[in-house]
Protein backbone atom coordinates (compact mmCIF):
# COMPACT_ATOMS: atom_id res chain seq x y z
CA UNK A 1 0.00 0.00 0.00
CA UNK A 2 2.73 2.48 1.03
CA UNK A 3 4.89 1.44 -1.93
CA UNK A 4 2.00 1.71 -4.36
CA UNK A 5 1.15 5.16 -2.99
CA UNK A 6 4.73 6.33 -3.52
CA UNK A 7 4.78 4.94 -7.05
CA UNK A 8 1.51 6.71 -7.87
CA UNK A 9 2.87 9.96 -6.46
CA UNK A 10 6.07 9.72 -8.48
CA UNK A 11 4.10 8.91 -11.61
CA UNK A 12 1.95 11.97 -10.99
CA UNK A 13 5.04 14.19 -10.62
CA UNK A 14 6.57 12.69 -13.76
CA UNK A 15 3.43 13.37 -15.77
CA UNK A 16 3.24 16.92 -14.43
CA UNK A 17 6.90 17.52 -15.32
CA UNK A 18 6.37 16.18 -18.85
CA UNK A 19 3.28 18.29 -19.49
CA UNK A 20 5.01 21.36 -17.99
CA UNK A 21 8.04 20.94 -20.25
CA UNK A 22 5.74 20.48 -23.23
CA UNK A 23 3.44 23.50 -22.69
CA UNK A 24 6.10 25.80 -21.20
CA UNK A 25 6.26 27.57 -17.83
CA UNK A 26 4.02 30.41 -18.97
CA UNK A 27 1.12 27.95 -18.68
CA UNK A 28 2.26 25.29 -16.23
CA UNK A 29 5.36 25.61 -14.04
CA UNK A 30 7.32 22.42 -13.32
CA UNK A 31 6.89 20.61 -10.00
CA UNK A 32 10.42 21.73 -9.10
CA UNK A 33 9.57 25.41 -9.63
CA UNK A 34 6.35 25.09 -7.59
CA UNK A 35 8.18 23.17 -4.86
CA UNK A 36 10.85 25.86 -4.66
CA UNK A 37 8.22 28.59 -4.47
CA UNK A 38 6.25 26.67 -1.82
CA UNK A 39 9.42 26.30 0.23
CA UNK A 40 10.01 30.04 -0.08
CA UNK A 41 6.42 30.77 1.09
CA UNK A 42 6.92 28.55 4.12
CA UNK A 43 9.58 31.04 5.25
CA UNK A 44 7.20 34.01 4.97
CA UNK A 45 4.92 35.19 7.76
CA UNK A 46 2.34 36.48 5.27
CA UNK A 47 1.77 32.98 3.89
CA UNK A 48 0.85 31.68 7.31
CA UNK A 49 -1.63 34.50 7.72
CA UNK A 50 -3.34 33.43 4.47
CA UNK A 51 -3.19 29.78 5.39
CA UNK A 52 -4.37 30.42 8.94
CA UNK A 53 -7.27 32.59 7.77
CA UNK A 54 -8.48 29.95 5.31
CA UNK A 55 -8.01 27.21 7.88
CA UNK A 56 -10.04 29.18 10.42
CA UNK A 57 -12.87 29.86 7.96
CA UNK A 58 -12.99 26.27 6.80
CA UNK A 59 -12.82 24.75 10.29
CA UNK A 60 -15.37 27.14 11.78
CA UNK A 61 -17.69 26.48 8.82
CA UNK A 62 -17.20 22.72 9.04
CA UNK A 63 -17.99 22.50 12.71
CA UNK A 64 -20.82 25.02 12.53
CA UNK A 65 -22.35 22.92 9.76
CA UNK A 66 -21.90 19.67 11.68
CA UNK A 67 -23.17 21.19 14.92
CA UNK A 68 -26.40 22.41 13.33
CA UNK A 69 -27.03 19.61 10.86
CA UNK A 70 -26.62 16.60 13.15
CA UNK A 71 -29.17 17.63 15.83
CA UNK A 72 -31.57 18.87 13.14
CA UNK A 73 -31.19 15.54 11.34
CA UNK A 74 -32.04 13.65 14.55
CA UNK A 75 -35.05 15.88 15.11
CA UNK A 76 -36.30 15.38 11.54
CA UNK A 77 -35.76 11.65 11.80
CA UNK A 78 -37.74 11.43 15.03
CA UNK A 79 -40.47 14.05 14.69
CA UNK A 80 -42.82 13.18 11.85
CA UNK A 81 -44.47 16.63 11.82
CA UNK A 82 -41.16 18.47 11.53
CA UNK A 83 -40.02 16.07 8.81
CA UNK A 84 -43.22 16.45 6.79
CA UNK A 85 -42.58 20.17 6.76
CA UNK A 86 -38.80 20.28 6.22
CA UNK A 87 -38.06 17.20 4.11
CA UNK A 88 -39.69 18.54 0.89
CA UNK A 89 -37.78 21.82 1.30
CA UNK A 90 -34.57 19.93 1.90
CA UNK A 91 -34.87 17.66 -1.11
CA UNK A 92 -36.03 20.51 -3.35
CA UNK A 93 -33.01 22.68 -2.50
CA UNK A 94 -30.48 19.86 -2.19
CA UNK A 95 -29.37 19.84 -5.86
CA UNK A 96 -28.89 23.64 -5.89
CA UNK A 97 -25.13 24.39 -5.81
CA UNK A 98 -24.61 26.05 -2.45
CA UNK A 99 -22.11 28.51 -3.88
CA UNK A 100 -25.12 30.31 -5.39
CA UNK A 101 -25.94 31.44 -1.85
CA UNK A 102 -22.74 33.49 -1.78
CA UNK A 103 -24.19 36.76 -3.17
CA UNK A 104 -27.19 36.38 -0.85
CA UNK A 105 -24.91 35.85 2.13
CA UNK A 106 -22.71 38.80 1.18
CA UNK A 107 -25.76 41.04 1.06
CA UNK A 108 -27.19 39.68 4.30
CA UNK A 109 -24.03 39.30 6.37
CA UNK A 110 -21.67 41.93 4.98
CA UNK A 111 -18.11 41.45 3.79
CA UNK A 112 -16.50 40.08 6.96
CA UNK A 113 -15.80 36.53 8.00
CA UNK A 114 -19.45 35.57 8.54
CA UNK A 115 -20.57 34.95 4.93
CA UNK A 116 -17.50 32.81 4.18
CA UNK A 117 -17.95 30.68 7.29
CA UNK A 118 -21.68 30.36 6.74
CA UNK A 119 -21.18 29.33 3.11
CA UNK A 120 -18.88 26.50 4.15
CA UNK A 121 -21.33 25.56 6.94
CA UNK A 122 -24.24 25.42 4.49
CA UNK A 123 -22.26 23.28 2.04
CA UNK A 124 -21.18 20.78 4.70
CA UNK A 125 -24.46 21.01 6.61
CA UNK A 126 -26.68 20.01 3.68
CA UNK A 127 -24.77 16.80 3.03
CA UNK A 128 -24.61 15.90 6.70
CA UNK A 129 -28.25 16.80 7.33
CA UNK A 130 -29.50 14.51 4.58
CA UNK A 131 -27.51 11.48 5.72
CA UNK A 132 -28.25 12.05 9.41
CA UNK A 133 -31.98 12.28 8.78
CA UNK A 134 -31.90 9.22 6.54
CA UNK A 135 -29.94 7.14 9.00
CA UNK A 136 -32.48 7.86 11.74
CA UNK A 137 -35.50 7.28 9.46
CA UNK A 138 -34.05 4.01 8.17
CA UNK A 139 -32.89 2.78 11.56
CA UNK A 140 -34.02 -0.79 12.06
CA UNK A 141 -37.25 -1.00 14.07
CA UNK A 142 -35.72 -3.60 16.36
CA UNK A 143 -33.30 -1.03 17.83
CA UNK A 144 -36.16 1.26 18.84
CA UNK A 145 -38.04 -1.66 20.32
CA UNK A 146 -35.01 -2.93 22.19
CA UNK A 147 -34.40 0.51 23.63
CA UNK A 148 -38.08 1.02 24.52
CA UNK A 149 -38.17 -2.36 26.27
CA UNK A 150 -35.11 -1.49 28.37
CA UNK A 151 -36.33 1.93 29.38
CA UNK A 152 -37.75 1.97 32.92
CA UNK A 153 -41.05 3.85 32.76
CA UNK A 154 -40.56 5.70 36.01
CA UNK A 155 -37.66 7.84 34.74
CA UNK A 156 -38.36 11.30 33.20
CA UNK A 157 -38.95 11.76 29.47
CA UNK A 158 -36.06 14.22 29.14
CA UNK A 159 -33.60 11.62 30.40
CA UNK A 160 -35.06 9.20 27.86
CA UNK A 161 -34.42 11.55 24.95
CA UNK A 162 -30.85 12.10 26.09
CA UNK A 163 -30.20 8.39 26.55
CA UNK A 164 -31.76 7.56 23.20
CA UNK A 165 -29.58 10.15 21.49
CA UNK A 166 -26.43 8.97 23.20
CA UNK A 167 -26.91 5.21 22.91
CA UNK A 168 -28.82 4.91 19.65
CA UNK A 169 -29.12 7.99 17.41
CA UNK A 170 -25.54 9.24 17.71
CA UNK A 171 -23.77 5.93 17.02
CA UNK A 172 -26.31 5.00 14.36
CA UNK A 173 -25.61 8.10 12.25
CA UNK A 174 -21.84 8.38 12.82
CA UNK A 175 -20.58 6.20 9.96
CA UNK A 176 -22.83 8.02 7.49
CA UNK A 177 -21.77 11.40 8.88
CA UNK A 178 -18.10 10.46 8.45
CA UNK A 179 -18.78 9.54 4.82
CA UNK A 180 -20.64 12.82 4.28
CA UNK A 181 -17.72 14.71 5.83
CA UNK A 182 -15.36 13.02 3.43
CA UNK A 183 -17.52 13.94 0.45
CA UNK A 184 -17.98 17.49 1.73
CA UNK A 185 -14.27 18.12 2.33
CA UNK A 186 -13.61 18.83 -1.37
CA UNK A 187 -16.72 20.92 -1.95
CA UNK A 188 -16.17 22.90 1.24
CA UNK A 189 -12.71 23.98 0.08
CA UNK A 190 -13.94 24.85 -3.39
CA UNK A 191 -16.74 27.08 -2.10
CA UNK A 192 -14.24 28.66 0.26
CA UNK A 193 -12.05 29.45 -2.75
CA UNK A 194 -15.01 31.18 -4.43
CA UNK A 195 -15.80 33.12 -1.28
CA UNK A 196 -12.17 34.23 -0.88
CA UNK A 197 -11.68 35.19 -4.50
CA UNK A 198 -13.21 38.65 -4.04
CA UNK A 199 -13.97 41.27 -1.42
CA UNK A 200 -11.16 40.11 0.86
CA UNK A 201 -7.38 40.42 0.96
CA UNK A 202 -6.76 37.43 3.19
CA UNK A 203 -6.91 33.70 2.65
CA UNK A 204 -5.53 31.22 0.15
CA UNK A 205 -8.29 32.02 -2.33
CA UNK A 206 -7.13 35.63 -2.38
CA UNK A 207 -3.50 34.50 -2.72
CA UNK A 208 -4.33 32.39 -5.76
CA UNK A 209 -6.38 35.08 -7.50
CA UNK A 210 -3.81 37.75 -6.66
CA UNK A 211 -0.93 35.66 -8.02
CA UNK A 212 -2.98 34.90 -11.11
CA UNK A 213 -3.54 38.65 -11.65
CA UNK A 214 0.23 39.19 -11.44
CA UNK A 215 0.93 36.20 -13.69
CA UNK A 216 3.06 34.79 -10.89
CA UNK A 217 2.37 31.17 -11.76
CA UNK A 218 4.63 29.46 -9.18
CA UNK A 219 2.93 31.45 -6.39
CA UNK A 220 -0.50 30.64 -7.83
CA UNK A 221 0.34 26.95 -7.77
CA UNK A 222 1.70 27.21 -4.22
CA UNK A 223 -1.70 28.58 -3.24
CA UNK A 224 -3.49 25.78 -5.09
CA UNK A 225 -1.24 23.24 -3.38
CA UNK A 226 -2.00 24.74 0.03
CA UNK A 227 -5.76 24.68 -0.64
CA UNK A 228 -5.47 21.07 -1.72
CA UNK A 229 -3.72 20.26 1.54
CA UNK A 230 -6.52 22.02 3.41
CA UNK A 231 -9.08 19.75 1.70
CA UNK A 232 -6.88 16.76 2.48
CA UNK A 233 -6.84 17.76 6.13
CA UNK A 234 -10.64 17.51 6.35
CA UNK A 235 -10.59 14.25 4.46
CA UNK A 236 -8.15 12.83 7.00
CA UNK A 237 -10.21 14.28 9.83
CA UNK A 238 -13.22 12.37 8.51
CA UNK A 239 -11.16 9.16 8.31
CA UNK A 240 -9.89 9.71 11.82
CA UNK A 241 -13.42 10.31 13.09
CA UNK A 242 -14.58 7.08 11.54
CA UNK A 243 -11.63 5.05 12.85
CA UNK A 244 -11.74 6.29 16.42
CA UNK A 245 -15.47 6.82 16.90
CA UNK A 246 -16.83 3.90 14.88
CA UNK A 247 -14.65 0.94 15.87
CA UNK A 248 -17.53 -1.46 15.21
CA UNK A 249 -17.75 -0.44 11.54
CA UNK A 250 -14.42 -2.06 10.62
CA UNK A 251 -15.53 -5.43 11.98
Amino acid sequence: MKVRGAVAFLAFLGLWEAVALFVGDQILPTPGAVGADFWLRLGQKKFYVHLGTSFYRATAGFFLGLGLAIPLGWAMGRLKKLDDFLAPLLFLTYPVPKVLFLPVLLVALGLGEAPKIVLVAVTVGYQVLVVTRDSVVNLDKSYWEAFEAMWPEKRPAMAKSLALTRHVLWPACLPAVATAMRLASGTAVSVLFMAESFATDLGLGFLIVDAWGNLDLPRMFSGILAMGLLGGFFYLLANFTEKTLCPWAKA
Partner: protein
Amino acid sequence: MAGAAVRVRGLAKSFGATQVLAGLDFDLAPGESLSFLGASGCGKTTVLRILAGACPFEAGEVAVGQGQAVRSLVSQNLGLFPWKTVLGNLTLPLDLAEVDPAEKAQRVEAALSDLGLKGLVDRYPGQLSGGQRQRLALGRALVAQPELLLLDEPFSALDALTREALGIHLAQLWRRLGLTMIIATHSVEEAVFLGQVIAVLGGQPTRAVAVFRNDGPKTAQAFTESHFMELTRKVRLALAEAWGPSANRVGSLQ
Protein backbone atom coordinates in the same frame (compact mmCIF):
# COMPACT_ATOMS: atom_id res chain seq x y z
CA MET B 1 -36.13 -13.46 41.10
CA ALA B 2 -39.21 -15.58 40.73
CA GLY B 3 -41.58 -16.26 37.91
CA ALA B 4 -44.79 -14.36 37.30
CA ALA B 5 -48.15 -16.00 36.64
CA VAL B 6 -49.64 -15.24 33.25
CA ARG B 7 -53.33 -15.09 32.45
CA VAL B 8 -54.71 -14.34 29.00
CA ARG B 9 -58.43 -14.27 28.21
CA GLY B 10 -60.18 -13.53 24.93
CA LEU B 11 -57.17 -11.74 23.42
CA ALA B 12 -58.01 -10.11 20.08
CA LYS B 13 -55.78 -8.13 17.78
CA SER B 14 -56.02 -6.92 14.20
CA PHE B 15 -53.77 -4.95 11.91
CA GLY B 16 -56.07 -2.74 9.86
CA ALA B 17 -58.67 -4.99 8.26
CA THR B 18 -56.91 -8.29 8.98
CA GLN B 19 -57.89 -9.92 12.24
CA VAL B 20 -54.80 -11.79 13.46
CA LEU B 21 -55.92 -13.03 16.89
CA ALA B 22 -59.39 -13.67 18.26
CA GLY B 23 -60.30 -15.23 21.57
CA LEU B 24 -56.86 -16.53 22.55
CA ASP B 25 -56.91 -17.97 26.10
CA PHE B 26 -54.17 -19.49 28.24
CA ASP B 27 -52.83 -19.62 31.78
CA LEU B 28 -49.34 -20.16 33.14
CA ALA B 29 -48.38 -20.81 36.75
CA PRO B 30 -45.32 -18.99 38.14
CA GLY B 31 -42.16 -20.65 36.82
CA GLU B 32 -43.89 -22.61 34.08
CA SER B 33 -42.76 -22.74 30.47
CA LEU B 34 -44.96 -22.56 27.39
CA SER B 35 -44.15 -23.08 23.71
CA PHE B 36 -46.17 -21.77 20.80
CA LEU B 37 -46.18 -23.63 17.51
CA GLY B 38 -47.95 -22.43 14.39
CA ALA B 39 -47.45 -21.62 10.74
CA SER B 40 -45.51 -18.58 9.68
CA GLY B 41 -47.63 -15.44 9.96
CA CYS B 42 -50.18 -16.91 12.39
CA GLY B 43 -49.39 -14.33 15.07
CA LYS B 44 -46.72 -15.80 17.39
CA THR B 45 -44.58 -12.67 17.34
CA THR B 46 -47.69 -10.57 17.87
CA VAL B 47 -48.67 -12.50 21.02
CA LEU B 48 -45.16 -12.15 22.46
CA ARG B 49 -45.04 -8.42 21.74
CA ILE B 50 -48.42 -7.95 23.41
CA LEU B 51 -47.20 -9.86 26.47
CA ALA B 52 -44.05 -7.72 26.52
CA GLY B 53 -46.22 -4.62 26.59
CA ALA B 54 -44.83 -3.46 23.25
CA CYS B 55 -48.02 -3.72 21.23
CA PRO B 56 -51.57 -2.48 21.88
CA PHE B 57 -54.53 -4.85 21.46
CA GLU B 58 -58.26 -4.38 20.95
CA ALA B 59 -59.97 -6.74 23.32
CA GLY B 60 -59.32 -9.26 26.06
CA GLU B 61 -57.43 -9.47 29.28
CA VAL B 62 -53.67 -9.85 29.71
CA ALA B 63 -52.27 -10.13 33.23
CA VAL B 64 -48.61 -10.80 34.03
CA GLY B 65 -47.84 -11.22 37.74
CA GLN B 66 -49.21 -8.56 40.09
CA GLY B 67 -49.38 -5.50 37.85
CA GLN B 68 -45.97 -4.40 36.57
CA ALA B 69 -43.90 -7.58 36.40
CA VAL B 70 -40.48 -7.24 34.74
CA ARG B 71 -40.56 -8.79 31.26
CA SER B 72 -37.79 -9.32 28.73
CA LEU B 73 -38.35 -10.07 25.09
CA VAL B 74 -35.66 -11.54 22.85
CA SER B 75 -36.98 -10.55 19.44
CA GLN B 76 -36.74 -12.62 16.28
CA ASN B 77 -33.83 -10.53 14.93
CA LEU B 78 -32.31 -10.03 18.41
CA GLY B 79 -32.07 -6.21 18.27
CA LEU B 80 -28.49 -6.15 19.55
CA PHE B 81 -26.79 -2.78 19.15
CA PRO B 82 -24.00 -3.25 16.58
CA TRP B 83 -22.10 -0.24 17.93
CA LYS B 84 -21.84 -1.62 21.44
CA THR B 85 -19.50 -4.36 22.56
CA VAL B 86 -20.73 -7.53 24.26
CA LEU B 87 -20.15 -5.80 27.59
CA GLY B 88 -21.80 -2.58 26.38
CA ASN B 89 -24.89 -4.47 25.22
CA LEU B 90 -25.14 -6.33 28.51
CA THR B 91 -24.74 -3.28 30.74
CA LEU B 92 -27.03 -0.93 28.83
CA PRO B 93 -30.32 -2.10 30.37
CA LEU B 94 -28.75 -1.80 33.83
CA ASP B 95 -27.34 1.67 33.12
CA LEU B 96 -30.73 2.85 31.88
CA ALA B 97 -32.43 1.44 34.97
CA GLU B 98 -29.78 3.12 37.18
CA VAL B 99 -28.85 -0.10 38.93
CA ASP B 100 -26.07 0.61 41.41
CA PRO B 101 -22.51 -0.31 40.37
CA ALA B 102 -21.91 -3.23 42.74
CA GLU B 103 -25.19 -4.87 41.85
CA LYS B 104 -24.57 -4.16 38.17
CA ALA B 105 -21.12 -5.76 38.22
CA GLN B 106 -22.51 -8.82 39.91
CA ARG B 107 -25.40 -9.28 37.47
CA VAL B 108 -23.18 -8.78 34.42
CA GLU B 109 -20.67 -11.25 35.82
CA ALA B 110 -23.45 -13.78 36.34
CA ALA B 111 -24.76 -13.33 32.79
CA LEU B 112 -21.27 -13.63 31.29
CA SER B 113 -20.58 -16.89 33.05
CA ASP B 114 -24.10 -18.30 32.61
CA LEU B 115 -23.91 -17.77 28.88
CA GLY B 116 -20.23 -18.49 28.30
CA LEU B 117 -19.42 -15.00 27.03
CA LYS B 118 -16.48 -14.28 29.32
CA GLY B 119 -13.75 -14.25 26.69
CA LEU B 120 -15.81 -12.12 24.31
CA VAL B 121 -16.57 -8.97 26.32
CA ASP B 122 -14.73 -6.61 23.96
CA ARG B 123 -16.15 -7.98 20.72
CA TYR B 124 -18.84 -6.24 18.71
CA PRO B 125 -21.93 -8.22 17.65
CA GLY B 126 -20.61 -8.18 14.07
CA GLN B 127 -17.58 -10.15 15.29
CA LEU B 128 -19.63 -12.92 16.94
CA SER B 129 -20.91 -16.19 15.55
CA GLY B 130 -24.67 -16.70 15.26
CA GLY B 131 -24.78 -18.80 18.42
CA GLN B 132 -22.73 -16.26 20.36
CA ARG B 133 -25.06 -13.46 19.24
CA GLN B 134 -28.03 -15.52 20.36
CA ARG B 135 -26.44 -16.08 23.76
CA LEU B 136 -25.67 -12.37 24.05
CA ALA B 137 -29.31 -11.50 23.32
CA LEU B 138 -30.39 -14.00 25.96
CA GLY B 139 -27.88 -12.54 28.41
CA ARG B 140 -29.12 -9.02 27.76
CA ALA B 141 -32.66 -10.21 28.47
CA LEU B 142 -31.60 -11.94 31.70
CA VAL B 143 -29.60 -9.11 33.33
CA ALA B 144 -32.89 -7.25 33.80
CA GLN B 145 -33.93 -10.17 36.05
CA PRO B 146 -37.29 -10.69 34.33
CA GLU B 147 -40.16 -12.56 35.91
CA LEU B 148 -41.37 -13.42 32.43
CA LEU B 149 -38.92 -14.26 29.66
CA LEU B 150 -40.31 -14.10 26.10
CA LEU B 151 -38.30 -15.71 23.33
CA ASP B 152 -39.26 -15.29 19.68
CA GLU B 153 -37.73 -18.13 17.65
CA PRO B 154 -34.57 -17.75 19.68
CA PHE B 155 -32.48 -20.33 17.88
CA SER B 156 -33.95 -20.25 14.39
CA ALA B 157 -30.80 -18.97 12.69
CA LEU B 158 -28.56 -21.72 14.06
CA ASP B 159 -27.37 -25.09 12.85
CA ALA B 160 -29.06 -28.13 14.39
CA LEU B 161 -26.26 -29.03 16.82
CA THR B 162 -25.76 -25.52 18.23
CA ARG B 163 -29.50 -25.19 18.42
CA GLU B 164 -29.89 -28.33 20.51
CA ALA B 165 -26.99 -27.38 22.76
CA LEU B 166 -28.40 -23.94 23.40
CA GLY B 167 -31.84 -25.41 24.03
CA ILE B 168 -30.42 -27.69 26.73
CA HIS B 169 -28.52 -24.77 28.22
CA LEU B 170 -31.65 -22.62 28.22
CA ALA B 171 -33.64 -25.36 29.95
CA GLN B 172 -31.04 -25.49 32.73
CA LEU B 173 -31.08 -21.72 33.17
CA TRP B 174 -34.86 -21.65 33.25
CA ARG B 175 -34.91 -24.37 35.96
CA ARG B 176 -32.31 -22.62 38.06
CA LEU B 177 -33.70 -19.10 37.80
CA GLY B 178 -37.29 -20.21 38.29
CA LEU B 179 -38.68 -17.73 35.80
CA THR B 180 -41.78 -18.07 33.66
CA MET B 181 -40.89 -18.53 30.00
CA ILE B 182 -42.78 -18.37 26.72
CA ILE B 183 -41.16 -19.45 23.46
CA ALA B 184 -42.38 -19.13 19.90
CA THR B 185 -40.75 -21.65 17.60
CA HIS B 186 -41.10 -23.54 14.31
CA SER B 187 -39.37 -26.63 15.63
CA VAL B 188 -41.65 -29.29 17.11
CA GLU B 189 -38.73 -30.93 18.99
CA GLU B 190 -37.72 -27.63 20.51
CA ALA B 191 -41.30 -26.84 21.51
CA VAL B 192 -41.76 -30.21 23.18
CA PHE B 193 -38.36 -30.08 24.84
CA LEU B 194 -38.59 -26.57 26.26
CA GLY B 195 -42.30 -26.27 27.00
CA GLN B 196 -44.16 -27.78 29.92
CA VAL B 197 -47.19 -26.64 28.00
CA ILE B 198 -47.18 -26.84 24.21
CA ALA B 199 -49.86 -24.80 22.46
CA VAL B 200 -50.57 -25.35 18.78
CA LEU B 201 -51.98 -22.18 17.25
CA GLY B 202 -54.38 -22.42 14.35
CA GLY B 203 -57.62 -21.24 12.85
CA GLN B 204 -58.45 -18.01 11.14
CA PRO B 205 -58.21 -15.74 13.15
CA THR B 206 -55.69 -17.53 15.33
CA ARG B 207 -56.44 -19.25 18.63
CA ALA B 208 -54.99 -22.23 20.52
CA VAL B 209 -56.39 -25.33 18.76
CA ALA B 210 -54.56 -28.01 20.77
CA VAL B 211 -52.71 -27.94 24.08
CA PHE B 212 -50.31 -30.62 25.38
CA ARG B 213 -48.41 -31.02 28.61
CA ASN B 214 -44.90 -32.35 28.97
CA ASP B 215 -43.53 -32.45 32.50
CA GLY B 216 -40.74 -34.83 31.51
CA PRO B 217 -37.09 -34.05 32.25
CA LYS B 218 -35.38 -31.34 30.23
CA THR B 219 -31.99 -32.92 29.83
CA ALA B 220 -30.04 -34.03 26.78
CA GLN B 221 -31.30 -37.60 27.29
CA ALA B 222 -34.91 -36.50 26.97
CA PHE B 223 -34.61 -36.26 23.19
CA THR B 224 -34.26 -40.02 22.85
CA GLU B 225 -36.85 -41.06 25.43
CA SER B 226 -39.99 -42.71 24.15
CA HIS B 227 -42.49 -40.37 25.81
CA PHE B 228 -40.69 -37.42 24.20
CA MET B 229 -40.89 -39.01 20.77
CA GLU B 230 -44.52 -39.99 21.30
CA LEU B 231 -45.48 -36.46 22.30
CA THR B 232 -43.53 -35.01 19.39
CA ARG B 233 -45.55 -37.22 17.06
CA LYS B 234 -48.85 -36.11 18.61
CA VAL B 235 -47.93 -32.44 18.36
CA ARG B 236 -46.86 -32.90 14.76
CA LEU B 237 -50.22 -34.50 13.95
CA ALA B 238 -52.07 -31.63 15.64
CA LEU B 239 -50.05 -29.16 13.60
CA ALA B 240 -50.79 -31.04 10.41
CA GLU B 241 -54.47 -31.03 11.25
CA ALA B 242 -54.43 -27.28 11.89
CA TRP B 243 -52.26 -26.22 8.95
CA GLY B 244 -52.12 -29.10 6.49
CA PRO B 245 -49.31 -31.64 6.24
CA SER B 246 -46.71 -29.22 4.85
CA ALA B 247 -47.54 -26.25 7.03
CA ASN B 248 -44.73 -26.74 9.44
CA ARG B 249 -42.09 -27.91 7.03
CA VAL B 250 -39.92 -24.97 8.06
CA GLY B 251 -39.64 -26.55 11.48
CA SER B 252 -39.58 -30.23 10.58
CA LEU B 253 -36.68 -29.76 8.18
CA GLN B 254 -34.40 -28.69 11.00
